[in-house]
């Protein structure tokens, strides 16, 4: 039985209880705590300075660096909502980055055309995954593993095994440009978030995604075309990965088929999980996935600014993420509370 939320006599307590009952409460609290810890380690963490052309500071850096994973986690949320998973997004980053870098450096195409083609390649990648999952009924983890493995090979074929370097200001702008004093990737992420949020929540797509993810068979019986819904989610995930690939490629002015976006699919999945979307599908929370991505990046930036030897990075990141996930578990919180009470009684 679910607990009933009883009206409390005290207004304040009532407000706090209601706040804590919000799904967004713990992810956002975790983000705030991590930022505070970062501030304690590095006193100028919250400082934002301005130069002639742009603002500089750790907070801005977090938003900028988080952009690729934010984008991936948006697409990943939709895929996970359908009870799927997309392991190929890291490889799709490599493919789309390679396409953009090679086209811009070897042809006369303008940057906008190259960007569109690159996103088109992302659509194709999503289509491939989606067809395998929705029509050939291959389990998502296996279906997307195929592109995860072969994708880097495809990217190497495109770049001829080299790191494809280019020099094109218009394309670089996607990764390193400045708009209103802030890095362009931040605006790209925000724009994509808003577009996709409106697309799924102001149309029926969102509820159909959730219905297919929660009960595939019943949705089919109710006339929902589950295959179309799944295909759509994988295509959007491909598009998000392509845009992330463009940002990463533009940032380093080159496409590295082996390392671009390496393991980022796992960060994206983690961001979705931190945001509270269950891997078993159904209800999804786009905004909280973005919070999850920001948490991951804040931890990374925090470790970098702390001056800890780089060899500690991955272990510290793992521990912090584990703490964030434990904090969200009501069973774990209750266990802690009971133990504290017990300690107090014995003391």
């Amino acid at each position, binding site marked *: 039985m679910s607990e009933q939320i*009883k009206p409390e006599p005290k207004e304040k307590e009532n407000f706090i209880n209601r706040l804590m009952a919000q799904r967004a409460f713990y992810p956002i609290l975790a983000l705030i705590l991590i930022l505070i810890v970062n501030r304690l380690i590095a006193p100028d963490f919250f400082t934002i300075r301005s130069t002639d052309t742009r603002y500089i500071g750790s907070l801005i850096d977090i938003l900028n660096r988080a952009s690729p994973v934010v984008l991936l986690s948006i697409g990943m949320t939709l895929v996970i909502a359908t009870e799927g998973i997309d392991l190929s997004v890291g490889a799709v980053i490599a493919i789309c980055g390679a396409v953009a870098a090679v086209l811009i450096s070897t042809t006369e195409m303008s940057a906008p055309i190259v960007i569109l083609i690159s996103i088109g390649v992302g659509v194709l990648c999503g289509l491939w995954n989606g067809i395998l999952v929705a029509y050939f009924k291959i389990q998502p983890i296996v279906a997307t593993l195929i592109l995860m493995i072969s994708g880097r090979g495809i990217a190497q074929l495109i770049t001829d095994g080299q790191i494809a370097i280019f020099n094109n200001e218009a394309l670089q702008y996607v990764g390193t440009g400045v708009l209103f004093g802030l890095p362009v990737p931040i605006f790209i992420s925000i724009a994509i978030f808003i577009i996709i949020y409106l697309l799924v929540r102001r149309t*029926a*797509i969102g*509820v159909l995604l*959730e*219905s297919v993810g*929660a009960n595939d068979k019943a949705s089919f*019986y109710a*006339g929902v075309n589950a295959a179309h819904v799944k295909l759509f989610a994988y295509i959007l995930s491909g598009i998000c990965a392509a845009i992330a690939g463009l940002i990463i490629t533009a940032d380093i002015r080159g496409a590295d088929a082996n390392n671009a976006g390496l393991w980022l699919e796992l960060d994206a999945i983690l961001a979705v999980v931190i945001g509270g979307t269950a891997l078993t599908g159904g*209800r999804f929370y786009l905004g909280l996935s973005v919070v999850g991505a920001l948490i991951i990046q804040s931890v990374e930036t925090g470790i970098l600014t702390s001056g800890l030897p780089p060899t500690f990075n991955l272990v510290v990141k793992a521990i912090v993420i584990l703490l964030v996930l434990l904090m969200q578990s009501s069973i774990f919180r209750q266990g802690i509370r009971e133990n504290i009470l017990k300690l107090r009684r014995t003391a």
Partner: protein
Amino acid sequence: MTPEYEEGIPLLQTRNLSKSFGNIDALIDVDFTLHSGEVHALLGENGAGKSTLIKLMTGVHKPDSGQILLNGNVIEVNNPNDAQKKGISPVYQEINLIPTLSVAENIYLGRQPMRMGFINTREMNEKARVLLQYYYINIDTTRTLSSFSIAIQQLVAIARGIDMSAKVLILDEPTASLDRKEVEILFEVIRTLQEKGVGIILITHFLDQVYEISDRITILRNGRKVGEHKTQDLPRVELISKMLGHDLYEQLGQSESNDNSAGKEQDVFIEAQNLAQKGLIEPINLTIKKGEAVGLAGLLGSGRTETALLMFGIKNHDQGQVLVNGVPIKLNNPQQAIQHGFALCPEDRKTEGIIGDLTVRENIILALQAKRGWFDYVSRSQQDALASEMIKALQIHPPDPDIPAGQLSGGNQQKLILARWLVSNPDFLILDEPTRGIDVGAHAEIIALIKRLCSEGISLLVISSELAEIVDYSDRVIVLRDRQQVKELVGDEISENAIMQAIAERDNV
């Protein structure tokens, strides 16, 4: 013949058992007594407290107050495992087995015969085979459980329960998915267990079966015990009135005859001509007029559900055709069926009907939304309006559109699926076992609804195991046997007897 229980220590007893969830009192001061060798029916509407009482006895929940006694000793049941060790074994309506394991593994899960530290698979399979023969089941016990019918799975669950602990057996709606023959086998098994001294608690909605097999009846209503009777001393009408808390209650199915079949010379809405799929069902021919209800009768496995699936495009026909208003239509998937105004309330509500994680409101608008497509969004205000209209019209309880549909009781889930289709304005509604596993009150409401829909001009195809029900609302009845259409009864020909004869007939029709 009913044994006398006035003397001796009861096998299982509860005293002043109470339990509340939040501020809802689920069970209040309930005394319940089960004797060795008796079949004790536990009756009540949904929400009466039957499940709570069972869950307290089996350690799923802990009582707030009161005692549970086994053989006269106060016991504390910590969890379901503990209950089974003490000899209290439940078999739930929704089968609690693991579908992907073999039958033998399911029966001996957690207590497999071992040899040198390893599971002795051969012995386990053989023991399972012998055990199941006792239940008149002859199957390959190495096959996965899910490859068998629900009826077999249910009997396997019972076999496991009895084999583990032979003292108290709790059967929660054991016959809901069994056909007549299987019910008889189950009852045979129950009688044998009775002779062995097993105490059996039976929860069922089939009152005929209560009178056939049970010795005593305990009735719960709104968490309180309202009566404990010897079955033979309690007239049926009185039982129903106690369950419902109504003083006057007409028994279902006894209403006036089918006088509505006359004057129905309207157009044929839907017609199936030689509709068949090889290996699934032999050719079916049926026509349904506007505002007509056609009953589909037959035993479980006779092809009733398969007919529904063909008519709704879930299974594809490889022969014959379907005509709507005289025009042949394409029918390869549910989407096409829905575009022609079809609707189907499936037999298995939980896996084929409701989306448990979504809210009642979202469940109600789902089919309408799927029909309208991705971008013709049913706005939130429309959703709210439709949901509250349906909740009111069908009296869905609790009347809260924003709780997950999975939290509703069986009867309310059934109403919810009906609501989902009604908002899509269907012309042809297929109902597969619409009253299965729901309580008496909701049952009556759904029958009334079926009649109302007909009078509004909707064509209905209704599948039901309850013959009295089919006789009550059908203008025509089609009888299936062994995946073949064997008889069509019209008007005055329709009676329980005629249907049963058609089902039982052999060879010549």
